[in-house]
C-alpha cells in the first residue's frame, strides 16, 4: 500500500523476465559455489580431525582422498599405461549417459503429454488412469530395472537389435513420463471457467480449445513438470546403468572405479563429479528451454 501505488502511473520499466532470472540465477550460483567451498573446507577438516581423535568413519587417504588428490585424479591415466586420462573416460561416459537420458526425457515427455491430452479430453481415462499415474510416483519403479533389462536382452523385434542401452533409455523414459503426465494434465485443466465460456461462445471445437487456450495456459505447469522429468530421466539413467551393469555410461564407471579405490582412490570421485556435472548440464538445458518458453509471459510480480 506504499510507494508502489505512487509509481503506478509510470510504464513498467522493470527488467525483462529473462534478465531478472539471469540475475537471480547468478546470485544463486555464487551462493552454491560458496556452499561447495564450505563442503571442501569441512571435508579437509574432518580428515584433519580424524588424525587426532577416533571418528565413526574411515578418514584414511584411500577412503577419503584429499581434495587436491581428487583434482589430480582428473589427469591420471585411466588404466596403468593407458593413453586416456580419467577425465576423458569420465567425460565420454557422462556424455553417453546424457544422450540416453535425453532420449528417455524426450520419449517420456512426449508420451506423458499425449496421455495428459487423452485424460483431459475423456474424463473416463482421467478417473481410471490418473490414480495409477499418481500412485506410480510413490513406488520404487526403479526396482523393475534389472527385469526390464532381462526382457530387453531376450526380445528381438525383427531386424531391430535391442541392446541394453535401450533398456536403460526405456527405464529413464518411464520415470520421466509420470511427473510430466500429472503436470501436463494439471496445466491443461488450468484455464478458468470464464476463459472456457469465452471459447464456447465462439463455438470453438475441443481441438481448437486445446491448441488456442489449454496449451498456452499450461506453460506455467509444464515447465516445472519438465524439470522434475529431466531430473528423473538423469537419475533413472544412472541408477538403471548401475543396477543393470550396462556398459558405456557413467553408472557402470562409478561401480568399476569403486572397486579400484585401493590402487587409485581418486578415480571414483572423478566419476561421481562426472555424474554431478551430468545432472547440472541437464538442469541447465531444461532451464534454457524454460527461459525460452516463458520469454513472452507477463513479468512476475515480486511485491
Amino acid at each position: 500500500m506504499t510507494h508502489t501505488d505512487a509509481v503506478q502511473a509510470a510504464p513498467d520499466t522493470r527488467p525483462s523476465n529473462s534478465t531478472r532470472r539471469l540475475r537471480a540465477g547468478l546470485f544463486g550460483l555464487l551462493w552454491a559455489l560458496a556452499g561447495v567451498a564450505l563442503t571442501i573446507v569441512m571435508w579437509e577438516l574432518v580428515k584433519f580431525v580424524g588424525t587426532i581423535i577416533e571418528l565413526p568413519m574411515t578418514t584414511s587417504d584411500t577412503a577419503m582422498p584429499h581434495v587436491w588428490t581428487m583434482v589430480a585424479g582428473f589427469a591420471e591415466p585411466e588404466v596403468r599405461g593407458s593413453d586416456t586420462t580419467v577425465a576423458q573416460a569420465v567425460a565420454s561416459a557422462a556424455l553417453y549417459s546424457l544422450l540416453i537420458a535425453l532420449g528417455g526425457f524426450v520419449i517420456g515427455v512426449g508420451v506423458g503429454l499425449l496421455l495428459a491430452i487423452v485424460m483431459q479430453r475423456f474424463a473416463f481415462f482421467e478417473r481410471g488412469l490418473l490414480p495409477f499415474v499418481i500412485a506410480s510416483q510413490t513406488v520404487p519403479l526403479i526396482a523393475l530395472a534389472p527385469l526390464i533389462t532381462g526382457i530387453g536382452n531376450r526380445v528381438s523385434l525383427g531386424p531391430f537389435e535391442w541392446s541394453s542401452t535401450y533398456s536403460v533409455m526405456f527405464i529413464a523414459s518411464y520415470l520421466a513420463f509420470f511427473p510430466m503426465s500429472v503436470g501436463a494434465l494439471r496445466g491443461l485443466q488450468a484455464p478458468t471457467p470464464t476463459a472456457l465460456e469465452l471459447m464456447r461462445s465462439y463455438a470453438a471445437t475441443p481441438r481448437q480449445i486445446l491448441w488456442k487456450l489449454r496449451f498456452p495456459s499450461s506453460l506455467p505447469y509444464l515447465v516445472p513438470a519438465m524439470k522434475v522429468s529431466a531430473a528423473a530421466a538423469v537419475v533413472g539413467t544412472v541408477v538403471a546403468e548401475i543396477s543393470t551393469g550396462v556398459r558405456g555410461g557413467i553408472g557402470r564407471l562409478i561401480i568399476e572405479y569403486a572397486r579400484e579405490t585401493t590402487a587409485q582412490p581418486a578415480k571414483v570421485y572423478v566419476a561421481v563429479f562426472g555424474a554431478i556435472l551430468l545432472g547440472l548440464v541437464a538442469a541447465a538445458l531444461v532451464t534454457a528451454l524454460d527461459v525460452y518458453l516463458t520469454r513472452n509471459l507477463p513479468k512476475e510480480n515480486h511485491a
Partner: protein
Amino acid sequence: MSERLKPVWTPLLIGVLALAAWELLVIVQDIKPYLLPAPSLIASNFFGDLGLMSSTAFYTGTTAIMGLAIGTILGIVAALLAVRFSVVNNLITPLAAGLATVPIIALTPILNNMFNITSRTPRVLVTVIIVFFPMFVNLTRGLLQVQPVQLELMRSMNASPKTTLRVLRIPNAIPFFFTGLKIAAPLAVITALVAEYFGGPQQGLGSRIASSAANTAYGRAWAYVVASIVVGLLFYLVVLALERWSTPWIGHRRSN
C-alpha cells in the same frame, strides 16, 4: 452407479481389466516366465512366501524409515535456523535446486568406503542426504511464506520474533511439511532400495530383485517388485493419513 463411487470403480475396473489382459496374453502367446511372468505366477510367489517377502521388505523399509526420520529432523533444524539466519537459506536453497537433478545415490560407493560397508550406515546416510533437501526447502518455504498482513497483525499485537515463530510461522508451515514429506517418503524408499545395488548386506529388496533375476527366478523377482510397491504405497499412505488428521483445513479455500 452413484456419482460418488465413480471415481473409485473406474480405476479399479481398469486395474482388473489390465491384470486379466496380462494373464490372457501370457497364456495365449505362451510367454515364458523369463520374459514376462503371468500375474498368477507372481501372486503365487508372493503369497506363497509371505514370510520371506515381509522380512525382505522390512529390512529395506527400516533403512528407509531411519533415513527419513533423521533427514526430516535435520531438515527441521536447518529450516528453523534459516528463519533466524538468512545465510543458511542462501547457502542451502541453491544447493538444493542444483542437487535435484544430480544422482546423489552415486555417493553410495564413497560412503561405503568411508563407513562400514557391512552395516546399514552408508545406505541410511545417503537416504538422509536425499531426504534432507526437499524437507528443508518445503519447511523453509512454509516458515517464511506468511502473508504480509499476518506479519503486520503480529507486529500490531507487539509480538516478539519468537512468539511470531510459535504462533504464526510454525502452524503455517505444517501443510508445507507434509508437501515435503510426500516427496521425501517415496524418495527414501527408492534410495534405500537402490543403495543395496552397491554391495553390502544382501537381505533387502534391491539386492534380492537383482539376485533373483540373475538366478532366473523371475516369478520370485517380480514378487519382490510387488513387495517394493507395497512398501512405497504404505509409506505414502501413512503420510497422507497423518496429513489429513493434522490439517483438516487442507482442501478448503483458505480464508481471505
